[in-house]
């Protein structure tokens, strides 16, 4: 069922949608070029009936160029079909926002901006979602340390047996 959707997309926009494949468990997926993602999404929503806002997330493939990949999981309630679109975005490249197509992609794109640092253009309210504004860096990037705490409140010294003397921010 979703295979037909992917084939229709490839037929309609052949330069934008490339490399369709069938993933694990029968998921129908395709790659989309970064500049044309809004066009593809509009085609999905208006012509192919994908009315529900997608789940948007990003993956950091450190070491590959382009470095990031933004994944859109789209679902159609009318056809009960699912489609996955993958967009390769390089370091510093911008991603056009799909909030003009589905309003629900708003917070997912803010999450992508906050956690991975991929700037999203055309977004109505682009600011950090989960981290505080004083935070520097993007936590979910592979080169950000796991324990890289940036405390807002200066921490007290604790003297106890396990943690030992000294300020708490040293580790």
């Amino acid at each position, binding site marked *: 069922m979703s295979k037909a959707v992917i084939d229709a997309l490839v037929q309609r926009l052949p330069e934008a949608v490339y490399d369709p494949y069938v993933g694990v468990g029968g998921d129908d997926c395709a790659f989309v070029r970064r500049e044309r993602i809004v066009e593809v999404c509009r085609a999905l929503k208006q012509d192919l009936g994908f009315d529900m806002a997608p*789940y948007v997330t990003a993956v950091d493939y450190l070491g590959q160029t382009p470095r990031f990949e933004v994944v859109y999981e789209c679902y159609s309630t009318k056809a009960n079909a699912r489609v996955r679109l993958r967009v390769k975005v390089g370091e510093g490249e911008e991603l056009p926002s799909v909030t003009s197509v589905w309003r629900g992609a708003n917070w997912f794109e803010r999450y992508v901006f906050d956690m991975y640092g991929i700037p999203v253009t055309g977004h109505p309210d682009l600011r950090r979602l989960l981290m505080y504004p004083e935070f520097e860096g993007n936590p979910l990037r592979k080169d950000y340390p796991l324990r890289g705490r940036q405390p807002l409140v200066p921490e007290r010294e604790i003297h106890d047996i396990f943690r030992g003397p000294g300020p708490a921010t040293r580790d």
Partner: protein
Amino acid sequence: MAEERVPAADDLLAPLPTKKMVLNMGPSHPATHGVTKFLVELDGETVTDLKIDIGYLHRGFEKSCESSTWTQVFPYTDRLNYVSSIMNNVGYALAVEKLCKLEIPERAKYLRVVTSELHRICDHLTLVGAQGLELGAMTIVIFAVEARDLIWDRLTELCGARLTSNYARIGGVARDLPEGWIEKTLKTLDRTAEVRDEIDALLSRNRIFADRLRGVGAISRADALDYGFTGPCLRATGEPYDVRKAQPYLVYDRIDFDVPVGSNGDTLDRFLMRVEELRQSDRIVRQCLQQMAPGEIIVEDFRYALPPKPLVYGTIEGVMAHFKQIMEGIKVPAGEAYSYTEAANGELGFYLVSDGGGRPYKIGLRAPVWPMLTALPQMTKGALLADLVPVYDSINYIAGEVEQ
């Protein structure tokens, strides 16, 4: 932002010039369950705009999981939607099994469904209780928590913990049912049914309750889909989308249950959805307990499941398999998969990327409540400040899954 309305000079009935007030319902507030900061722009008592600031419980779920093995992720997933933790466990386990292409035994499937539905009952009871509590009907929450405590007793006997159960494993479940559990659970369900009927009788047709909730926070079906609503909030608007019926997973295709669908999309409908789903979950659990047959509870493959202890202590292969799994983690083949289940709030999705090793490369979580929070400003525009609280409650915002 201050805005002044200046009336015309000869307008005797014009209101006095006013400014809009921005009220901060801060992160620590009795009515915001968990931690959200609302910046409410008020014109008198009417809400004109709402800005939501989340992130006050961001615990770094995804980054912590990237440095744990595949099985060590289960306690992290427990604490996502902490009122119905087994559903998160099962959702994640299904995603990993999709990547590994594992078939799990029948009894494991039934056990997963039984425990998921019991936790769904707990989640809906908590929400129904909270909805009553926020509107001043404090007896309801005491009844709901009593029933919830009873169900948690059954789950303690099964999983070991009341709340964060850590029950599912990759390839099956962790433990089998103890002696006499089924009879006790049926009695617990009877008691829960009594509590539920009492809550229904007290609240659903209560004049005060209905007046406060009817028509408040309404959203249309098309808007709800545009925002990406799923679960009871979407079904309250009239769209009959339930993952258990649309793409059945585990044993939901063998069980006979209905999916309640509302019509108005307002807060009263969302509340009634949850009460109805309590009834349906009860049906599902009873049918599963009848249909369940004795058998294996975890897949027999030692690459994915820990071998039983006599083999670990007795044979070399058992020791090796145990050691490899604990130290390095299960080797999940490289690739990516997206798996979704119907959690208590909506479609809970896990997007997993594996690089072939023992630790996940990426775990992406689709929190069901994000679209509802995005739509909250629209739902409360023009409503009174006192209506903000029930609307926000009816979304069932659970901080653990929203702020991964």
